[in-house]
């Protein structure tokens, strides 16, 4: 039996997202590497898994989804409504309500690490050098990223949710 094209693409995006995630996890323990590399793989894993779930909408032409920007924040908001994510907050809907804006904000910060998102308003990114307001050119590998702060309890929850979305695709 042949796989429908969108299913094949969705599966492949999810596979690549999982691979990116594994590199992200490995880089977490590489103190010699700049933080930009770890964050880069985290951002790419999020972007690709969001696209994989988006590709399940087979009413949209494949090329449109492949070439469009899929919002990771929008994906997360919808994922939190799925029964998979519901297990995180079973019986605690008010806690989910309180946590959602913070989780979405963190996801937006991860998404903003991509150079293509808003290079004018937010030039800081994990991939290419940028010029700051004072004319200084900064390499991502020399930059100390203050956001997203992945040391918080909220961030740990988000990372668990992302991992679940990757595993259960």
């Amino acid at each position, binding site marked *: 039996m042949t796989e429908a094209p969108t299913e094949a693409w969705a599966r492949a995006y999810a596979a690549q997202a999982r691979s990116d995630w594994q590199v992200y996890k490995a880089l977490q323990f590489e103190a010699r590497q700049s933080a930009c590399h770890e964050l880069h793989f985290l951002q790419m894993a999020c972007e690709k898994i969001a696209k994989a779930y988006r590709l*399940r*909408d087979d*009413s949209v032409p494949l090329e449109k989804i492949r070439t469009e920007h899929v919002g990771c924040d929008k994906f997360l*908001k919808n994922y939190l409504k799925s*029964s998979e994510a519901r297990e995180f907050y079973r019986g605690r*809907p008010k806690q989910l309500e309180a946590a*959602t804006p913070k989780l979405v904000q963190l996801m937006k910060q991860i998404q903003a690490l991509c150079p293509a998102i808003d290079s004018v308003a937010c030039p800081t990114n994990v991939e290419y050098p940028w010029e700051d307001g004072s004319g200084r050119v900064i390499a991502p590998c020399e930059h100390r990223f203050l956001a997203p702060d992945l040391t918080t309890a909220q961030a740990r929850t988000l990372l668990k949710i992302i991992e679940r979305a990757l595993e*259960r695709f």
Partner: protein
Amino acid sequence: MNKDEAVKDLIEYHFDSESELRTVFRFISEREDDPDEPVKLLEVSGATPATGSVDVFGFRSTETFPFRLMIAEVTPEEMDAIRADPSRLPAGWRLDSAVEISRNRL
């Protein structure tokens, strides 16, 4: 749990966990009785990022919700635009065959 009960339970959970959720549209297809036909929900929320499009994400069935779920969120303003131009909806999602569920009418 049948499909309608499972959907009601899920939507109830969505209302309980999001005070900004205004209303939910459930799109009913001609094949809705088929367990493989996904549940299709469009949720109107004041807390979702506006994108100007209806971005549907698909989730597979789970033990607690044994049906595929296709879900999208739009802002109230985006919903107004959809009402004015239903072609903004994904193919096969028709407002005239949708059930509108509000917080008080679950």
